[in-house]
């Protein structure tokens, strides 16, 4: 996890296009300037970043389901629950399921588990639009490679 760069997941562990599910993993860094303020003497992974991590996990699922034809942008959040504290150095197991792929939008249900315990969950809505430009798409493809996005799955999905 490169928290300051908003790269909140480390690796795509599993992508199942038939079930429309994804699993990713991430390790919260042991140190970050963010923890100096959140909170002094009691560092915690900010809940907004946990939500963003769920959105990024969901986003890669949506990109896979739409076969890299649309970019999902975070649009709405429902029933978000931050159930337990997440501390620096902890490993996160993230997952998402596509609830619906509409025309120009998609809805997912996502969660994060930490030490097998549910840390947070939410329903997330995305707007789906064409990639804004070629550079944007190229950057997403580069990030997909870093995350070990299984491009081969798209051809068979």
């Amino acid at each position, binding site marked *: 996890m490169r928290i300051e760069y908003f790269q909140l997941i480390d690796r795509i562990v599993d992508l199942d296009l038939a079930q429309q599910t994804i699993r990713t993993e991430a390790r919260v860094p042991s140190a970050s300037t963010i923890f100096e303020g959140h909170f002094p003497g009691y560092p915690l992974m900010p809940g907004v970043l946990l939500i963003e991590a769920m959105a990024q996990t969901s986003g890669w699922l949506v990109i896979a389901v739409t076969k890299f034809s649309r970019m999902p942008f975070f*649009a*709405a959040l429902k029933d978000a629950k931050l159930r337990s504290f997440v501390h620096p150095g902890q490993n996160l197991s993230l997952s998402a399921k596509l609830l*619906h*792929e*509409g*025309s*120009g*939008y998609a*809805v997912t249900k996502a969660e994060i588990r930490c030490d097998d315990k549910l840390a947070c969950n939410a329903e997330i*809505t995305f*707007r789906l639009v064409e990639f804004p430009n070629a550079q944007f798409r190229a950057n997403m493809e580069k990030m997909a490679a870093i995350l070990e996005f299984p491009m081969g799955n798209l051809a068979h999905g």
Partner: protein
Amino acid sequence: MPSTFETVANIISETCDIPRETIKPESHAINDLGIDSLDFLDIAFAIDKAFGIKMPLEQWTQEVNDGKATTEQYFQLNNLCTRIDELVAAKGA
């Protein structure tokens, strides 16, 4: 079984907290009811689920932007319900 309009009106009322009695067949979702595009995503999700369809919102928006259709054709509720009925019929065909 509720009519398409009843179902859609109830969805709009619950999703956008609009009094049900103010929602009429001739109401325009945007101009009369003040529904914005983000709220309409919630409505679209509920309609898609309720009727088991996928409303072609991208196509409709493109047609409006290209001047090939008016917003009334898709977002006035009686017209929207006609589109929904057509999609449901096409699904069953």
